């Protein structure tokens, strides 16, 4: 019962109210019952005493004149009082004078009289009153009546009980009505709290209906919900953010892993591809050294040149990739004819096409298609695409090259009847280091950078490159779209690809890497420059004094004396104060450039240095002396 009441505020309130009411009613009822008992007793005793006195007074003459009959008649009037069960009058000598009552009266009458007062025997009240007149004792009146205190209290209890029940019923009704004003807001708080717990919905609010403490509770509860809601939202947002970041990181990791794997594969391939031409070249060298046969030597030279060219191509590709990724590739744009570019590219792949006995068909309009582009790079793009087509087509296949003008866009299609490309792999064609068929790549050589390079070069030209294939065995088509340049000044076709002759200059190369210096010197000599080289700073200073170079390439990271120190020494020479000093270093940060500038360098080249950069630098060096 108590546990049942303890689970509900409403029941507790009801219990408290009813408990209070019951206690109050019990106290009241007890007081009333006690009062009633006393009152009944006193009233009844007084009543009987008075009755006895009246009887005594009335019966005094009868006693005076010894008239029991009259006394009996007086007593007989008591029949009007049913509660009086017996009555009697005694003479002063305690002898019975007259009596009243039923047949059992004689037994009920006390044997003697004389005392005055009352006594309660069980449920009977006995009263004695003396009769006096003129100070003379005439006799005694005796009355016996029912004393129904118990019965009366019982009926009184019943009435009080009924009244209590009625009061409780009213109290229940009233408390049910009154407590609603208190419990209803509390219960609504409890309901909302439970809903919040069940639904985890912190946007719920309790409606405020009062301004008392419960109202304060409601406000506090709502504020708490709002706070919790805010925090939950923040947490959720943070979680979502975290989840997103985790996903990003995971995909980044995945990409890194893939890239890492590609790089591993690439390095393996690269090593392989770099190693491959070396054996034939070594063989060729051996032939050159041992044979005197002119034909054999010529064949060996051809073979060696081919192998070397393949290596050069590889390394060029690598350098291009490196330049593009480091953002160092600069397009030397000019007005070029698409026809010339294509022809140039075809010339590059012609030996391969012939070797595999492919049929190369051209569909190029005769009208000039002018582009603002880097002719060399664009040729490289199409050479790569064609090279790819040749490689991935079985011998005796057909390669179709078509070009047309579509508005301001020049479209070039290279279609082949080759192995085609799986739909799933189409998307990866232009990714770096992608090789679809390792065996084909092995036989033809390649690092999987050709198409990636092509794509990046096309995009640098503001164009697009796409690939289509109807699946494995159905060949593939590469489409290159390039914007047609109309504002560019027409330049000599493919002029940029030809080494331009420039005035001969004195060039000093200082580097402890002998091979690099030697090859670079050969290159510059081919350009017609006067080149000197040294491998250390000390000799460089001596040479420079007499040679007085127009331009000097100094390696910064030399032993003993650093490039910086050397630069200062050279600048200190009066004859070389105007010499263009070029720093060649592996360090390319702003700080490094700052340092070289402070040391007196005019240019800062970062290894690996593109021979073109060297050539350009020499070409641009002003001939001051």
């Amino acid at each position, binding site marked *: 019962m108590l546990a049942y009441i303890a689970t509900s505020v409403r029941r507790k309130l009801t219990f408290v109210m009813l408990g209070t009411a019951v206690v109050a009613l019990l106290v009241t009822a007890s007081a009333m019952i006690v009062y009633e008992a006393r009152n009944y007793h006193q009233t009844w005793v007084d009543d009987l005493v008075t009755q006895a006195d009246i009887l005594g007074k*009335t019966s005094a003459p*009868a006693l*005076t*004149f*010894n008239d029991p009959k*009259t006394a009996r008649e007086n007593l007989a009037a008591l029949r009007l009082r049913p509660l009086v069960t017996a009555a009697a009058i005694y003479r002063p000598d305690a002898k019975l004078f007259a009596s009243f009552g039923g047949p059992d009266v004689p037994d009920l009458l006390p044997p003697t009289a004389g005392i005055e007062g009352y006594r309660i025997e069980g449920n009977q009240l006995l009263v004695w009153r003396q009769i006096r007149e003129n100070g003379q004792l005439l006799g005694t009146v005796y009355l016996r009546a029912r004393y129904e205190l118990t019965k009366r209290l019982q009926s009184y209890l019943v009435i009080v009980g009924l009244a209590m029940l009625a009061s409780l019923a009213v109290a229940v009704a009233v408390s049910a009505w009154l407590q609603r004003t208190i419990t209803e807001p509390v219960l609504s708080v409890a309901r909302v709290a439970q809903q919040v717990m069940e639904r985890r919905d912190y946007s719920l609010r309790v409606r405020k209906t009062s301004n008392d403490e419960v109202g304060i509770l409601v406000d506090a509860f709502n504020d708490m919900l709002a706070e919790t809601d805010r925090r939950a939202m923040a947490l959720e947002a943070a979680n979502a953010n975290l989840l997103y970041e985790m996903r990003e990181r995971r995909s980044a990791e995945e990409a890194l892993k893939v890239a890492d794997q590609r790089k591993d594969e690439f390095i393996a391939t690269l090593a392989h591809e770099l190693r491959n031409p070396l054996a034939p070249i070594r063989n060729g060298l051996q032939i050159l050294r041992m044979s005197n046969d002119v034909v054999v030597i010529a064949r060996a030279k051809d073979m060696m040149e081919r192998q070397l060219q393949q290596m050069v191509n590889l390394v060029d590709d690598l350098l291009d990739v490196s330049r593009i990724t480091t953002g160092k590739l600069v397009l030397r744009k000019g007005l070029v004819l698409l026809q010339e570019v294509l022809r140039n590219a075809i010339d590059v792949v012609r030996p391969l096409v012939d070797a595999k006995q492919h049929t190369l068909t051209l569909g190029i309009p005769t009208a000039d298609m002018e582009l603002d582009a880097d002719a060399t790079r664009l040729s490289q793009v199409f050479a790569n695409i064609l090279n790819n087509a040749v490689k991935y087509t079985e011998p005796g296949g057909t390669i179709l090259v078509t070009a047309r003008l579509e508005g301001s866009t020049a479209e070039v299609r290279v279609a082949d009847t080759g192995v085609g490309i799986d739909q799933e792999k189409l998307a990866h064609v232009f990714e770096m280091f992608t090789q679809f068929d390792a065996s084909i790549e092995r036989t033809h050589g390649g690092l999987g950078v050709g198409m990636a390079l092509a794509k990046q070069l096309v995009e640098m030209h503001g164009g697009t490159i796409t690939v289509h294939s109807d699946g494995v065995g159905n060949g593939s088509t590469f489409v290159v779209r390039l914007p047609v340049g109309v504002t560019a000044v027409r330049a000599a076709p493919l002029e940029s690809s030809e080494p331009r002759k420039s005035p001969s200059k004195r060039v000093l190369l200082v580097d402890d890497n002998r091979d690099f210096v030697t090859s670079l010197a050969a290159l510059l000599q081919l350009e017609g420059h006067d080149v000197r080289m040294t491998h250390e700073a000390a000799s460089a200073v001596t040479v420079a004094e007499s040679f007085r170079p127009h331009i000097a390439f100094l390696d910064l990271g030399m032993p003993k004396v650093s490039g910086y120190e050397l630069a200062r020494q050279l600048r200190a020479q009066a004859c070389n104060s105007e010499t263009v000093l070029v720093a060649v270093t592996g360090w390319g940060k702003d700080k490094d450039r700052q340092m070289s500038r402070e040391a007196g360098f005019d240019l800062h080249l970062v290894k690996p240095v593109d021979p073109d950069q060297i050539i350009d630098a020499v070409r641009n060096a002003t001939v001051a002396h």
Partner: protein
Amino acid sequence: MAVVLFLAVCWLPSSSHAQSTAEALTSERSVMAEYIYRFITYAEWPAAVFPTAEVPIVIGVVNADDIAAELEQVVRGRLAHNRRLQVRRMAPGDPLTEVHVLFIGREVAPRFFQTAKLISDRPVLTITDLERGVDQISIINFIQVDGRVRFEVNVAVAEKSGVRLSSRLLTVAMRVRPG
């Protein structure tokens, strides 16, 4: 006839009826004397008859020495209405002044009332013991009922005399003649 009956009644229960009769008579006289005293306690006189507080209530007894003797015994040392009581033996011709209560013996009573008619106009409580059936000329008349002394009251005479009787007295009277 009455005598015969009286004898018959007395004869049967008692062996010495003569002695009993004498004792009963004495007892009857003493009861009467006592009753006379008690009548006084239930009666009221006009204030004029008692000029002072010392004036006693005078009980005149005419031609009834036995009653007078008993009365003298009864009133000795007793008061009524806070007054002393005085018994006066009187002859029929004696003046009735200063008498408040008058008991007249049976033999002289009829003649007494004839000769002293004026007595009814005076505030005197007249008491007789005349036999039943006789016209009541006194205020109170003793009668015998079942061997016990009872009395009857003539309210008319009482009113005429100026003596007021308590109604409570009337409740125990054997008979009350209305006024």
